[in-house]
């Protein structure tokens, strides 16, 4: 190729790439934050959407009833004005009067009215819609066992409405914080097919951001809603959410500065980032999820064969001493340090450390003590009578299968360590990995004697779903205790959240004593942030909480998170 042809070819390539670029035009990325997500949204209708991605994004598109935050010092939710200017409790707290802003408009110019809110709640509670958030209306007025929207919600005027509950309870305002959707858009929608309504893909909101573009499996682009009348308009022009499933790829993009927010960063990567990437700030979130080893408390063969009528103690784990022995035999601290480093916290019970006021601080985690474990097993009648190295009692060997989800490296490690630890005290553990969907369904259906699982707690204390009746799906180990049942009733019917403190503390003492399962550790999520992103405050409410405060600035300027 002659030099002249080469020159012309290079020139053409340059022109091809640069033509169309308008000089002086501002790079849109200079006012855009990029967030990496592991999964896509399913739709943008808060009544029916199910994915966590949808929830994160909807909170910024639709008008929130309250500006909710979590006060870590007090360990409780705080509700500041948003669409609701003021909430008043009346009729012994059973009625909540909401005074609403009258200047908030949907993107299409229509006013956001109490009618929109009532219409939305009617959808949330309608069985034909089957909303995943249907339990939010559980304590409102029912007729014939069904949510009665007309008796539950009363519209007084254009800016005042009353919600009627059957009782006063601490979570009332939380349950009034469901996002409203515009009635004029959805009023003729077929309820049974609401999930696939085309309007769900072009949401009309009134929040600080609006949906600019959604390319499935690729990216979701939010743009600032200049018409937002809520007290928190967005400061940033755009936020792009990119779907990147593979964690190593996500981390590479964070290190390259292509994305600004990534959750979770794995503990193994922390040291490398701290040493080599000064532009990345790492934040640790207070823990909301824990891992545990479930020991089935009841004889599941009897339970299922009797049509869930007969409840007898489990032949292996039905004895409290055995469950305590299992916890003593497992070196939980070592497992946690190996897997999470300093990003874990030993779990004493399932009451999250974020609820400081409700935690019984004098409970000491069970130490690793194999000798104590052997002693407890002996006192429960288990001994190695035939010298084969495995404990037995009445001719039955202490042997069981531990189930865990396939592909989860951390749980694979835990399973192997548990197998090894329990072998040392004379218990034979067989390991069985199971596909996640099947595993969780079987756990909820109480089909396993022993399993490894995790649990994420809500933003308000609600132990009833976990430790209530045996047949509740989240009471995965079928633990039943008369005193806990009494305490749940007492704790859930107090008027103010704090009044439940003594009841919750007593439940923790019982759980600690009974060891219905072996509580392993709380996991503290790590979030990676590019320092050019200012004003971000990832917290227990999520990474995108208060996204309207985000700004792009000089990465070298000092900023406190």
């Amino acid at each position, binding site marked *: 190729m002659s030099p002249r042809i080469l020159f012309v070819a290079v020139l053409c390539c340059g022109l091809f790439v*640069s033509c169309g670029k308008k000089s002086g035009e501002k790079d849109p990325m200079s006012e855009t934050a990029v967030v990496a997500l592991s999964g896509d949204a399913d739709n943008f209708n808060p009544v029916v959407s199910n994915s966590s991605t949808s929830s994160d994004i909807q909170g910024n598109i639709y008008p929130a009833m309250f500006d909710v935050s979590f006060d870590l010092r007090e360990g409780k939710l705080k509700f500041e004005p948003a669409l609701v200017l003021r909430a008043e409790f009346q009729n012994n707290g059973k009625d909540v009067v909401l005074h609403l802003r009258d200047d908030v408009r949907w993107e299409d110019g229509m006013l956001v009215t109490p009618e929109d809110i009532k219409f939305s709640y009617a959808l949330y509670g309608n069985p034909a819609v089957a909303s*995943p958030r249907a339990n939010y209306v559980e304590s409102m007025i029912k007729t014939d066992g069904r949510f009665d929207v007309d008796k539950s919600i009363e519209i007084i005027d254009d800016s005042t409405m009353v919600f009627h509950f059957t009782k006063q309870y601490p979570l009332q305002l939380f349950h009034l914080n469901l996002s409203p959707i515009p009635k004029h858009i959805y009023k003729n929608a077929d309820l049974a097919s609401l999930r696939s309504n085309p309007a769900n893909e072009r949401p009309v909101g009134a929040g600080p951001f609006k949906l600019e573009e959604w390319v499935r*499996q690729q990216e979701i682009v939010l743009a600032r809603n200049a018409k937002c009348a809520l007290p928190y308009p967005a400061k940033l022009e755009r936020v792009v959410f990119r779907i990147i499933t593979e964690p190593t790829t996500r981390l*590479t993009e964070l290190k390259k500065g292509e994305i600004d927010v990534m959750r979770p960063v794995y503990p193994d990567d922390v040291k490398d980032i701290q040493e080599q990437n000064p532009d990345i700030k790492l934040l640790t979130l207070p823990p909301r999820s824990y891992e545990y080893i479930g020991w089935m408390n009841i004889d599941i063969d009897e339970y299922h064969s009797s049509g869930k009528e007969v409840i007898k103690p489990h032949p292996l784990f039905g004895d409290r001493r055995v469950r305590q022995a299992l916890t003593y035999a497992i070196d939980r601290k070592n497992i946690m340090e190996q897997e999470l480093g300093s990003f874990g916290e030993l779990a004493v019970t399932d009451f999250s450390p974020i609820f400081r006021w409700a935690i019984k601080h004098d409970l000491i985690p069970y130490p690793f003590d194999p000798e104590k474990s052997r002693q407890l097993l002996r006192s429960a009648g288990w001994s190695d009578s035939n010298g084969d190295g495995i404990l037995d009692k009445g001719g039955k060997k202490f042997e069981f299968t531990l189930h865990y989800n396939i592909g989860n490296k951390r749980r694979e490690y835990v399973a192997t360590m548990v197998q090894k630890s329990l072998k040392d005290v004379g218990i034979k553990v067989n390991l069985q990995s199971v596909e996640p969907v099947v595993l969780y369904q079987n756990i909820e259906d109480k089909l396993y004697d022993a399993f490894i699982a995790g649990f994420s707690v809500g933003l308000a204390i609600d132990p009833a779903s976990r430790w209530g009746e045996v047949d509740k799906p989240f009471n995965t180990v079928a633990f039943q205790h008369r005193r806990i049942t009494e305490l749940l009733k007492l704790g859930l019917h107090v008027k103010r959240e704090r009044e439940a403190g003594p009841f919750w503390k007593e439940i923790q003492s019982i759980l600690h004593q009974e060891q219905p399962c072996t509580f392993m550790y709380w996991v503290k999520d790590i979030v990676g942030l590019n320092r050019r992103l200012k004003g971000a405050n990832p917290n227990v409410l999520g990474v995108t909480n208060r996204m309207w405060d985000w700004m792009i600035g000089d990465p070298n300027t000092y900023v406190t998170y």
Partner: protein
Amino acid sequence: MIRYIIKRVMSAIPLLFGLLTFTFFIIRLAPGDPMSLYIQADVDPMYAENLRNTLGLNDALPLQYVKWVKGMLTGELGMSFSKHADVSRILADTIPNTLLLTVFALFFNFLIGIALGVTTALKRGSATDHIVNVSSLFVYSMPEFWLGLMLILGVSLQLDLLPASGMHSPLAKYLSFPEYVWDVLQHMVLPVFVLGVASAAATGRYMRGSLLEVVNQDYVRTARAKGLSEFLVIGKHALRNALIPIITLLGLSLPFLLGGAVIVETVFAWPGMGKLTVDAIFARDYPLIIACTLVSGVMVIAGNLLADILYAIVDPRIRYD
């Protein structure tokens, strides 16, 4: 030939139907309730029951099958459980992304593969032959997942030469058209390379073997004896016959065009059919699983048919009439 094609297409219909019927029953027999993914377990079971009724999951299996057959015959692929959208629209969104990746990877595979095969066959026993053979084996045995991650870490992170993930940069729609094309091309380089390189190594080995077999035949010796140039001998006489086994490979590679490539798509965050299929399986999204199977099934059948047609074109001895 036309009659042969029509006959093959007609005989493919019951095959395809059988495949889909098998998939229909096998996914419903697999454990795991789709509703457990869409409604939290602590919500009143009445809500999940209503959703099951709406989606027809409470119908008896034969009735579900009849409804599904009716839908298929009217071209109705159904509504995705997990993505809450029409399955045909999801496929229409995903198939172009997949084709963009796989067509280039297929070109890369055959172009590089044939070139390597011809070079090594002609230089048999030389240092080039040995180096290419060893390298091919090395590349062929490398897991795609590992190669992809290594390239991301090396080429993208350390050298900062190419983007690491996605089909384009964020807000690429604000770029001018040439810039957009350039941006997409840059994003394609690594996934296309990873997807194509291992197959190219295999194609090269096939090509080498096939050409070596042909160059020793009498008609090639005759061509050389006539005094034809080496280029003509190989290019016109030897290569045409040596390509016949490669055409089988091409036919077998076609399903991959739309089947996508799960690993490469996951590593490079490429929104294609492979990842869509796997996500659908994990989400127990029955309509989407069936639709993805339909696409793959059609491609397998079409690939085989195309290979047979190409045989006839390349090898005049083959007649289907």
